[in-house]
């Protein structure tokens, strides 16, 4: 717990010394961190590789966007509700996708994401089609709370969500449910032979993972003020998968670091050159070849945990 605590303290204090544009960037990094962590639940703990996680993210964004635009629901409620909705909707999705295993499972998640993308493109009423939803407000709600209107305010709101989500996920992976997931990851046939209905566990983790991803997307909509089909695009699904792998799978904190790293490098590189995507590609290939445990794995080997 020491390292995540250290990271949390740093993230909590960092904004005090940062210019506003950096705070915006950091907020986006935390939102992506939540998104990446949600994917790690599936990828790192159950070896269910989703190629279509943007579906959950975009869904959450459109959901909270609609709640905030068309109702007077206060922001935290809209965000939470959207995340919950994302999780519930993901149950039948999980059921369909877990009909298959391995690469076929991944392809099904991609198919679902593309379907959502295609639908969003046309469903003008709910999604604003290719224009998307714009002008998404940060509703104050019945008590007139407006502190999340400021950059700092929204940052700390996001930080709070991320911290709570992290603690919940940590509890989850350390619970009996988490132990079964580990079994599924290591040897699913044996886990079934031991008497576990692995299908149910897989559907459950897909729903939970998509729910947290929806929460991240739901935060993004009021953060950016808009939601569009880019949030459902497969390129984003690929990017978040990279954040997880670069950060370190199966660690929860690794993907958060991966997301921060990703955004930071993207920002720095795009200042120097238009071809930042080129360097990104090179970095990814290098990480895969030489640092398969990701950033978190590298840090852990440099600072090994001492025995309690």
């Amino acid at each position: 717990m020491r390292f995540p605590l250290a990271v949390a303290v740093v993230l909590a204090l960092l904004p005090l010394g940062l210019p506003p544009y950096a705070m915006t960037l950091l907020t986006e990094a935390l939102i992506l961190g939540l998104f990446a962590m949600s994917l790690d639940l599936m990828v790192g703990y159950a070896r269910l590789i989703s190629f279509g996680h943007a579906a959950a993210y975009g869904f959450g964004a459109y959901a909270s966007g609609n709640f905030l635009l068309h109702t007077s629901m206060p922001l935290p409620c809209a965000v939470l509700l959207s995340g919950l909705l994302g999780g519930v909707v993901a149950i039948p999705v999980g059921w369909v996708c877990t009909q298959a295993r391995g690469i076929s499972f991944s392809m099904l998640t991609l198919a679902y994401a593309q379907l959502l993308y295609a639908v969003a493109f046309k469903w003008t009423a709910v999604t604003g089609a290719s224009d998307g939803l714009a002008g998404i407000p940060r509703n104050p709600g019945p008590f007139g709370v407006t502190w999340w209107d400021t950059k700092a305010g929204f940052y700390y709101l996001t930080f709070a969500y991320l911290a709570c989500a992290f603690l919940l996920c940590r509890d989850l992976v350390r619970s009996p449910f988490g132990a079964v997931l580990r079994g599924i990851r290591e040897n699913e046939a044996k886990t079934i032979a031991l008497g576990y209905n692995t299908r149910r566990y897989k559907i459950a983790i897909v729903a939970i993972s998509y729910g947290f991803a929806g929460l991240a997307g739901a935060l993004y909509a009021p953060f950016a003020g808009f939601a569009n089909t880019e949030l459902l695009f497969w390129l984003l699904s690929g990017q978040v998968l990279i954040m997880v792998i670069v950060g370190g799978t199966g660690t929860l904190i690794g993907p958060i670091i991966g997301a921060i790293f990703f955004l930071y490098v993207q920002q720095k590189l795009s200042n120097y050159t238009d071809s930042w995507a080129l360097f990104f590609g090179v970095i990814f290939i290098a990480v895969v070849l030489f640092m398969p445990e990701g950033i978190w794995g590298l840090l852990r080997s440099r600072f090994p945990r001492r025995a309690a």
Partner: protein
Amino acid sequence: MALLELDDLTKRYGGIVAVDHVTMRLEQGEVRAVIGPNGAGKTSLFHLITGVVKATEGSVRFAGQDLSSMPAHQRCQRGMSRTFQLTSLFPELSARDNISLAAQSRDAKRWIPFGGGAVFRDAARRGDEALQRLGLTHIAERPAGLLSHGDQRLLEVAMALAQQPKLLLLDEPTQGLSVEETAQAVDVLAGLFAAGDLTVLLVEHDMEVVFRLAHKITVLHRGAVIADGDPETIKADEGVQNAYLGGFA
């Protein structure tokens, strides 16, 4: 009423008959060995009993209940635990964690997504008991993937035992073991079975192991039962000797 009743159990893959109208009665407390040359259908039979593979014909009744439509994980919950011919463990987890997961599956709260202190404690207790019965307490903390082959085979048996099964299915427990390891394993298993509280179906190739452990023997050849009886009768049976091409007398 027998604990396990197989009636005309058959599995066909296209033109190939893997299991051919097998009928068998297994009584409570019995240790039955299933033997036969390679390809006789022994592991296929296990797959049919445990539900890994769906039968083409015939039925499986366990403790009086027809299992035909029950999926594999549910049959295990009913009280059947098995080991595999090719060692199947969780290699990155410690031996204790392996067993804990096996024991956990009997807990009604095995799925709870938070806390779980009580669940883990109960599972650990049952796991430690099983480790002790198999003489594996000294390797409890080691990752299962790093154990010796002999210890791995016994760990699998321990995992099955930790589930406190009504029926234990062991698929070639001494496969791949050296002569010494086999002798050790047989000693442990004999001690285990001597307690009399287990019903065991055992697939084995090593006839010495069979004669030391089994109360009764069923012989399979090309998927069908060709002989059934106590060890002395089987030893003398000509049909069995022919099936093994040269016998073992």
